[in-house]
């Protein structure tokens, strides 16, 4: 994590529902009640308009807000799959949360965009999904981004 602070990685996380995950994401920048409520709200709004399932067992909830101070990509590797994320998405095992600061600078936006584009490769996603330990996982994320 030291090399690229854009990413946060959590392994063997125990969450039973989508709401618990959203709540966790909203607290990443601290426990401000107003901010928490706003982020959860935005995440829920996004879910309402369309599924964020990006591959089998992988969801990518994302949010952009002026309340966010620092853009981050948060990996949550679940210990046990979340059975019912939504109507389309069953057995979610990996959550890739994206928190984007309003008016973020181009450089960071580019890094995030290039990471997301890497997710278009099924192979890359499956390696992320099947990774078993944090160190290994970090390597797999950082490698394509260095290119």
């Amino acid at each position, binding site marked *: 994590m030291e090399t690229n602070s854009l990413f946060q990685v959590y392994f063997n996380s125990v969450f039973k529902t989508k709401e618990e995950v959203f709540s966790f994401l909203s607290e990443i920048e601290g426990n401000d009640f107003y901010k928490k409520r706003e982020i959860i709200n935005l995440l829920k709004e996004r879910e309402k308009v*369309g599924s964020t399932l990006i591959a089998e067992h992988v969801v990518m909830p994302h949010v*952009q807000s002026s309340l966010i101070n620092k853009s981050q990509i948060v990996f949550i590797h679940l210990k046990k799959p979340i059975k019912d994320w939504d109507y389309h998405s069953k057995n979610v095992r990996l959550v890739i949360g*994206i928190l984007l600061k309003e008016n973020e600078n181009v450089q960071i936006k580019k890094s*995030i965009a290039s990471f997301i584009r890497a997710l278009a490769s099924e192979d890359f996603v499956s390696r992320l999904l099947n990774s078993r330990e944090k160190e290994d996982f970090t390597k797999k994320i950082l490698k394509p981004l260095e290119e």
Partner: protein
Amino acid sequence: MSSKRKREQELLMYLSKKQDFVTSEELMEVLDVSQKTVYRLINKINNEYVDGPLILSERGRGYKLDYEKFINYQKGLNQYKDGQYTPHERRIRIMEELLLSSPKPISVYQLFSHFHVGESVIFNDEQIMSEVLKKYNLVLERKNRTLAILGEEANIRKAIKDINEIFNVIDIDDLKRNKELNFNRYDVFFILDQLKKIEEDLDITIPYPYNVNIFSHLYILLSRTRKVPTRLYPDKISEQVLENMKNDILYPVAKEVIQNIEKYLNSPLPEIEIYFLYQYLVSSRMQGSIAKTSTFSADVVNVTKTYIEGMSSCLGIELDSQSLFVELANHIKPMLNRLQHNIRVKNSLLSQIKVTYENVFNAVKKVSEMVSERFNLPEINDDENGFITLYFAKAIETGQHLRPIKTLIMCTTGIGTSELLQAKVSKKFPEIEIVDVISTSNTQKSKDKYPEAELILSTVHMKEDVPIPYLLVSAMFTNDDQDRLRKKIEEIYHGN
């Protein structure tokens, strides 16, 4: 090729096309033979191949080609074997000898002595050779136990080149090193030097297979002149044609090469040799400055256009790109010269082209017939059709023929799943041109900013009515999404 050989080739081609296991039932149907014959063919192919089986078999799955070995095998096919001759090879050797010495008669005894064959075989060979030579308007004459081939020089040269299979497989870069070809090494070096001079004088390069064609022509010229010293050929060329040639920039180049050959052989050559060589030059595709600056004649433009239009309607797709036109016209230009001068360029990839681009090839064949008729040209043969097929296949495979569809991609924040969708779409749909990734809050603005947009792809439901065609897809871009997008694209092409 015997029918058995042909079937073997068909079997191999079919397997190479499939690239996966094929059941024997399928092979029976494709080749229209019994199961026993399929087994026999496969056994024969595998037995003949030295380094283990060429065709792999697996119980319950069928047969599969070992592709790497297959490529090797194809190369091996082109190599000449020593010693034993098949009847086909024997006849070729004899025809070659007669052609090179034409019109001089050679005694039958001398011709057939190393083959140890009887009278009836010789008689039979004569019949078969007569038939072959008839196609070149040449006559095989038998007189007092001698044979001779009679006819126009241009036809004799053409027959030599076609009959000697070696001229179809040589690779210019390989010539200097390859010893199996049995070429006279001094001649090879001399001719390669002349080719280089032609390229330098004109500041062009002559690509494969045209360089091989010129090489073969010059090699045959040397062999022929040594066997039959200078004489008057019966060929007649009109004054008009000669006049036209003398005004061409290629003429001085052809003349110089012929003069060099005269020095090399230390014997004068008839004037007509310049014309023979000129025909080859004008029929070759050239890459370089003259090729670029030269504009296309009305005939070239019309024939090229007819091909593009004909192919569009045959295949039911829109083929409308400048690069296709220029590339094809650059091919058509020398092709028209080849047709006029009756020069054939062997297409060594023909059988593979036929298999890989079957539809395109058949369409080209049809259009070629139409072109011949409309422009009053000689028949356009399959070698030429094969070359033309490649231009269209390339255009189709690279999606050049498709007008790009200007597309907006939409997501709530404009950076999340839309970015992912963009990456996935551009990978699988080259015809989609993504103009921008926008967020839902900007829908109204985008319409003003991108009035030319024809399609919106979105991972979110849109609440308001959008005047632009719009397709909701999941960020996973599943097969179902891809099918629906394909349909949408067709609708858009069709609607216009």
